[in-house]
């Protein structure tokens, strides 16, 4: 669904990095909603997020950034809320207020309790101040705590997906986090049976498959496999 050949393909642009779990969330949403977009790669390792051009779009220098004609939206949660309002097909939130709240809560466990504690800046800090081996200990500890919380939160709500039988916001945050935890940090998933089952479900869903880090235009050749 990225870089389609039709006219509307260039209407939406997504600035993304293949490995960014925040960008990953948005890629899933775009695919779910059937939105064609132009993939604009921003190489975070080369510091391309600090280019003058990119900083004009997002002065903070983070990906993802969505450009929809003259509207520019940064931050994965803000982008998802924007997409939900502008392109309501395949809704990302259920109607029921309690279930909506569970989705916001699950999304926030990932985006506040897990992901910020494993980003590059934090890991660099821990590696320097403690030692590089501590990184894996630190990351696994925080992911573990977050996953434990998610297992408890979702156990009364999960169906085929996190909060029922349809894909919703929680799934968009969970899938990238699970992907990173398993592939980058080799987390032992045995204590998390519900999340393990959800991960299997995501791996079989086309919208999720197409959004995977290893399938993006900027994925390095050696990772693409």
């Amino acid at each position, binding site marked *: 669904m990225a870089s389609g050949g039709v006219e509307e393909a260039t209407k939406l642009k997504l600035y993304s990095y293949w490995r960014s779990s925040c960008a990953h969330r948005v890629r899933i949403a775009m695919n779910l909603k059937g939105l064609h977009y132009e993939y604009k790669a921003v190489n975070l390792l080369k510091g391309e997020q600090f280019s003058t051009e990119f900083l004009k779009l997002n*002065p*903070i220098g983070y990906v993802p950034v969505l450009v929809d004609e003259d*509207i*520019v*939206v*940064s*931050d994965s*949660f*803000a*982008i998802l*809320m*924007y997409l939900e*309002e*502008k392109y309501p097909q395949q809704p990302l939130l259920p109607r029921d*207020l*309690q279930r*909506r*709240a*569970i989705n*916001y*809560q699950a999304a*926030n*466990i990932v*985006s*506040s*309790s897990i*992901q*910020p*504690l494993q980003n590059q*800046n*934090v890991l660099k*800090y*821990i590696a320097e*101040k*403690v030692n590089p081996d*501590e990184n894996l200990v*630190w990351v696994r500890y925080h992911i573990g705590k977050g996953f434990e*919380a998610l297992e*408890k*939160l979702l156990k009364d709500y999960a169906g085929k997906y996190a909060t029922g039988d349809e894909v919703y916001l929680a799934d968009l945050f969970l899938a990238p986090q699970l992907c990173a935890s398993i592939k980058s940090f080799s987390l032992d998933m045995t204590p998390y049976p519900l999340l393990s089952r959800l991960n299997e479900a995501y791996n079989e869903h086309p919208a999720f498959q197409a959004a995977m880090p290893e399938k993006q235009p900027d994925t390095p050749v050696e990772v693409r496999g």
Partner: protein
Amino acid sequence: MVVPVLNIHLFIHPLRTAALLPSDHRQYQKTVVMSSAESPRQESSMPPPASKIVLYSFWQSSCSWRVRFALNLKGLPYEYKSVNLAKGEQFSPEFEKLNPLHLIPVLVDGDVVVSDSLAILMYLEEKYPQNALLPADQRLKALNIQAASVVNSSIQPLHMLSILKLIEEKIGPAERLSWAQYNIEKGFDALEKLLKDSAAKYATGEELYMADVFLAPQIAVATGRFDIDMSKFPTLSKIFESCKALPEFQASLPERQPDAINLLRSRFLEHIYE
């Protein structure tokens, strides 16, 4: 968690004493909420909800603070139930039923139970649309959510007590403050850049929205607990001054919550009887 002695100075300032010792603290809170003379909103309030909203909160929690501020802004009366994190009350069987994650704030509204400040604010926004916390304009709405995310994801989680304890264990006690300050200043730098073109009286213009609800408690904590020098952040400083002037913000201050006032009372009495 031991209540830091540092915060005692908030209680002994003479000008605050009168405000801290009304006989019915909840009544004081409700009275302030209902008065909208200086409210930043022009719209009239809708009738209150049929059953009373209950908020489980701790006076020192900045996440609870956001929700208290938002409830006041929307003119929603609520019952304050304190959960003393210092005494581990978040692990009581009763609270565990409400939130098995043992986190506050938790909002109970009839049959609905919502945890997590962002989830609560989105719930309130959808259920009680009066005094909207998100503007209709798509750009401004997105900007508000982005600013809230910076606070919610990039700043506050990194200076939570549990993280500071970890830093202290792994690196040393001296590192706690420099770690917290580094991350707060990084986040505030980002927010200055993000908001400099949109900010006026408030973060995204002349009206208060969700960004301000996240920013004001964060700035208060940054200055009160972590000695951040706000002169480096003029846009944020201005936003903070605007929020501080609001009765809705004043009523949400940590030191004005029932559990803070009870703590003050009991320490005062201990002191008298020493």
